[in-house]
C-alpha cells in the first residue's frame, strides 16, 4: 500500500504548520515558517492551517498526498506524544506508510516556553527544518503483531480494583486480583457513612467483595504482592509472592476460635488506625473477604519466643500451618490495571495543628473509625477520657493546598468534613466548627448536602486554622483542658480563638506507600504530586504511557468513591479493548543487524536488557528477535562496528536532524 521511497533525492515532502488557534500562532510567525519551509530541499508543498488535527486539516494532508504524490509528511504542531497517532492514521488512510510522517514539536517545546516572537519563530524554523531533513531519510516500516492473552492482573483490592475486576470478569475474561493485605476492601472498608447519601460504606461495599470472591473468573490473591513484571502488552509475565499466612485456607472454616484464644491481645490494629487492639492471629475486620485469619509473625509468641501454638491446639479442622513459607509463582496476563490507592500523608508532621500534642486530635480516617459501629468505641463519638465532646473543630486542608506539604487539593475532604459535622450533630450535642478555605462541593448532590449541613447548626468559619494551642490568659472562658483553634475569619477580617475539646484534621491524601516501587516495576511515570501519571490528563485518563497498563482510582490522584468507580470501569473497558481484539500491533522501531558488518563481538548481547539479541552460531552473526526487542537502541550506540541500526531512529536520520537544528536560523 505504501508508495514510499527510501532514497534521498526522491523525497516529496509536505509540510503542515499548525496554528493551534493562538497556542502556536500567538508566538510563532506561522506564515513565515510555512513560506520558508517551501524553499527547503525536497519540499513539494508547505501550508499553514488553524487546526491541523481537525477534520479539514487531516483531509488536506490526505488530499495533498494524492494530488502531489507526497511520500513524506511533516506536521509542525504539538508534541508527538499528543497527536502522532492522529496524523499517522491520516497518512495511512491516504495510503502513505504512517512511519513516513514526522511531527515537529513547536508547541510544548517552542511557542509555550518562549516569550519573544522572533526567538520563538527562529527556534520553530530550526525545529521544522531539522524534521524535514530527517523526514527525507525515513523509511517505511510495518508493525508486527502479537497475541493478547485474555486475562488481566489487577494490583490492589480496594473499591477501584474490585469494580474493575467485576467488570472484566463479567465480560468473560480472567482476572487475577492481587491485594497485599489479607482482605480486599481497601480504605472504603474503613469508612463509616459515605457522602452525600449517607449510605453505610460497608453495606454497599461488602456485597461487591463477596461477589469478587465467588466469581468463577476471578482468582483472588490476597496477602500476595507483585514482585516483578516483564514483557509487554499482550504477554506480561508477572511474579507474585504469596506471603506465608500460616493458615491453610482450604481447611479453615473461619470460625474464629483461634482469634479469641490467642494470648497476644495488644497489637495495635492497622484497620482501626491503631486506636484498638487485635491478637497476633487475626482477620482485618469481621466482614473480611476471604474471612480467613493470618498469623502476624512479628507479634506471634510462637515465632517471637519460640513457644505457644495455642491456635494450633484449638483449631479443630487443623488449619494452622506453623511452617508455612512464602512462595512465588508466575502469571501470564495480557493487560494490567493498577489500583494501588492512596495513603494519608504522615499526620505526625502536623504538630502545629495539635496532632500528637493533644490526645483528642484525629485524622479523617481515625475519626471514621470513631464513628463506625464496628470501630474502637462501637460508634460512640467520645474523647479519649470517655466523655462526649462539647465542641469539635474540623480543620480543612491540613497538608493539602499547602506549599509546605502537598500543593494539590485532596478533593474529598470538604465533603467528608461536612459528613462528620452531620454525624456529630446527629450523635452528640457538641458545637461543631468547620474551618475552611473554600468549600468545594463539586459532585452530584454535594452542594445540596452542604446546604443541609449548614441548616443543621454547624458553624462555618471561612479561614484556615493557623494553629492549635493550649489556652492562655487570653482565653478566659475556655476550660483549662480545652484546645484553642486560632484562625482568621476572612469574611470579617478578624482573628478568632475558638476553644474546642476535639479536633478532626482533614488530612491530605498522598500516593500510597510503595508507589515508587510500583512505578519502577511497571515503568509508569508519576506526576509532580507523586501519584501515577495518566497518558493524557483529558483524553487518556486511564491509560499510562506503557501500553497495556491502566490506572484506576486514587493511585492516579485523590478522588471520591463515585469517581473511583467510574474510572475503574473506564480502565476495565480500556483493558478489554485489547483483549477483545485479541492481538496488538508491535512498534516496528526495533534494532536490525547488518550482518555484513557484524563481527559477533557480543557487546550488544551484553547490554540488551531484554535478552533480545543472540549470536547465531551457524553464521557467527548477531541476530535481533524483533518481537522481544523494545527499541531502546542501547545496542546500537554500543556496537563498535556500527553494524546495528535502530529503525526509525537511525544514525543517518539523526545526523540530518542535527544538521538542520544547527543550520542557518539560530
Amino acid at each position, binding site marked *: 500500500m505504501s508508495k514510499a521511497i527510501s532514497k534521498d533525492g526522491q523525497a516529496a515532502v509536505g509540510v503542515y504548520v499548525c496554528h493551534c488557534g493562538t497556542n502556536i500562532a500567538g508566538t510563532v510567525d506561522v506564515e513565515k515558517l510555512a513560506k520558508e519551509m517551501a524553499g527547503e530541499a525536497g519540499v513539494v508543498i508547505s501550508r499553514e492551517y488553524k487546526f491541523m488535527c481537525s477534520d479539514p486539516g487531516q483531509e488536506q494532508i490526505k488530499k495533498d498526498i494524492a494530488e502531489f504524490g507526497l511520500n513524506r509528511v511533516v506536521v509542525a504542531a504539538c508534541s508527538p506524544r499528543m497527536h502522532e497517532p492522529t496524523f499517522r492514521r491520516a497518512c495511512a488512510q491516504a495510503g502513505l506508510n504512517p512511519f513516513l510522517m514526522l511531527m515537529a514539536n513547536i508547541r510544548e517545546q517552542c511557542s509555550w516556553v518562549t516569550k519573544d516572537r522572533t526567538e520563538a519563530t527562529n527556534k520553530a524554523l530550526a525545529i521544522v527544518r531539522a524534521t524535514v531533513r530527517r523526514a527525507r531519510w525515513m523509511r517505511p516500516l510495518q508493525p508486527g503483531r502479537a497475541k493478547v492473552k485474555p486475562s488481566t492482573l489487577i494490583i490492589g483490592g480496594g473499591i477501584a480494583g474490585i469494580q474493575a475486576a467485576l467488570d472484566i470478569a463479567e465480560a468473560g475474561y480472567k482476572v487475577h486480583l492481587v491485594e497485599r493485605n489479607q482482605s480486599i476492601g481497601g480504605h472504603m472498608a474503613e469508612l463509616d457513612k459515605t457522602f452525600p447519601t449517607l449510605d453505610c460504606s460497608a453495606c454497599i461495599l461488602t456485597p461487591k467483595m463477596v461477589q469478587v470472591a465467588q466469581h468463577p473468573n476471578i482468582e483472588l490473591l490476597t496477602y500476595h504482592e507483585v514482585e516483578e513484571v516483564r514483557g509487554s502488552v499482550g504477554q506480561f509475565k508477572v511474579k507474585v509472592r504469596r506471603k506465608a499466612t500460616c493458615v491453610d485456607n482450604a481447611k479453615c472454616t473461619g470460625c474464629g476460635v483461634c482469634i479469641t484464644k490467642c494470648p497476644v491481645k495488644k497489637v495495635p490494629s492497622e484497620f482501626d488506625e491503631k486506636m484498638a487492639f487485635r491478637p497476633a492471629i487475626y482477620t482485618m475486620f469481621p466482614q473480611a473477604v476471604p474471612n480467613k485469619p493470618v498469623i502476624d509473625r512479628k507479634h506471634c509468641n510462637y515465632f517471637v519466643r519460640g513457644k505457644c501454638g495455642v491456635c494450633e491446639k484449638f483449631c479443630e479442622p487443623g488449619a494452622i500451618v506453623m511452617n508455612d513459607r512464602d512462595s512465588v509463582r508466575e502469571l501470564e496476563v495480557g493487560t494490567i490495571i493498577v489500583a494501588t490507592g492512596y495513603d494519608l500523608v504522615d499526620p505526625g508532621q502536623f504538630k502545629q495543628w495539635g496532632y500528637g500534642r493533644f490526645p483528642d486530635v484525629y485524622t479523617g480516617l481515625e475519626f471514621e473509625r470513631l464513628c463506625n459501629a464496628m470501630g474502637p468505641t462501637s460508634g460512640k463519638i467520645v474523647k479519649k477520657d470517655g466523655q462526649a465532646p462539647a465542641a469539635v473543630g474540623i480543620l480543612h486542608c491540613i497538608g493539602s493546598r499547602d506549599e509546605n506539604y502537598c500543593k494539590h487539593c485532596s478533593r474529598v475532604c470538604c465533603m467528608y468534613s461536612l459528613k462528620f459535622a452531620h454525624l456529630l450533630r446527629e450523635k452528640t450535642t457538641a458545637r461543631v466548627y468547620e474551618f475552611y478555605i473554600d468549600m468545594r462541593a463539586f459532585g452530584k448532590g454535594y452542594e445540596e448536602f452542604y446546604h443541609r449541613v449548614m441548616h443543621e447548626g454547624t458553624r462555618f468559619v471561612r479561614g484556615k486554622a493557623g494553629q492549635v494551642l493550649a489556652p492562655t490568659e487570653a482565653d478566659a472562658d475556655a476550660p483549662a483542658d480545652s484546645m484553642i483553634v486560632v484562625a482568621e475569619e476572612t469574611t470579617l477580617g478578624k482573628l478568632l480563638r475558638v476553644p474546642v475539646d476535639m479536633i478532626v484534621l482533614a488530612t491530605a491524601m498522598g500516593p500510597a506507600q510503595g508507589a515508587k516501587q510500583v512505578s519502577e516495576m511497571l515503568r509508569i511515570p508519576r506526576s509532580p504530586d507523586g501519584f501515577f501519571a495518566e497518558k493524557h490528563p483529558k483524553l487518556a485518563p486511564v491509560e499510562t504511557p506503557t501500553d497495556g497498563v491502566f490506572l484506576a482510582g486514587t493511585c492516579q490522584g485523590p478522588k471520591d468513591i463515585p469517581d473511583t468507580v467510574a474510572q475503574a470501569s473506564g480502565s476495565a473497558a480500556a483493558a478489554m479493548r485489547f483483549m477483545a481484539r485479541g492481538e496488538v500491533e508491535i512498534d516496528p522501531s526495533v534494532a536490525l543487524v547488518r550482518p555484513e558488518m557484524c563481527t559477533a563481538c557480543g557487546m550488544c548481547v551484553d547490554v540488551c536488557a531484554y535478552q533480545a539479541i543472540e549470536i547465531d552460531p551457524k553464521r557467527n552473526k548477531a541476530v535481533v528477535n524483533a518481537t522481544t526487542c523494545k527499541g531502546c537502541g*542501547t545496542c546500537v*550506540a554500543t556496537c563498535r562496528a556500527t553494524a546495528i541500526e535502530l529503525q526509525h531512529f537511525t544514525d543517518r536520520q539523526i545526523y540530518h536532524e542535527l544538521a538542520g537544528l544547527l543550520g542557518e536560523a539560530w
Partner: protein
Amino acid sequence: MSENFQPRIVGFLCNWCSYAGADLAGTSRLKVPANLRVVRVPCSGRINPLFIFKALEEGADGVMVSGCHPGDCHYISGNRYAKRKLAVIRRLLDWVGVEPERIHFTWLSASEGARYAVEVGEFVDKVRALGRRNPMARQGVAS
C-alpha cells in the same frame, strides 16, 4: 564573550521521561531559553557518542543529555549505559581541547518540568560564560 552571546545548545532527551518533562515545562507555560533545541531519542541509551561529536562539529556550543532517573528507565538500564559513555566522552573532549563542561548530563523525570526549565537556564548561562571556542566545529559553521 559578551552578554549577548547566544550559545547554540543541542539537547538529547529520552522519549519517556526527559522529553515528557520538557513537554510538561510547556504545558505549565514555564519559560525555557530558546538556546536549547531538542532531539528526541527513544532512550538515553540510544545516544551514540558520535551524536555529541557531530553536534559539536555542526557548531553546537554545548550538549545536554538527559534520561530517566536511575531505576526509572523505561528500558530498564539504557540510562546507565548512557551515563557511563558520557563519562568517557568528557575525558576525550578534554583531551581534544573542548571544555568537558560543555556537556551536561542530568536525570529528568516526566514530572520535573520546572526542574528542566531551571537546569536548561543554568546550563545556557554556563556555556555562555565559556564562550564560543569550539575547536571541533567544522570550518565555516562556528561564527
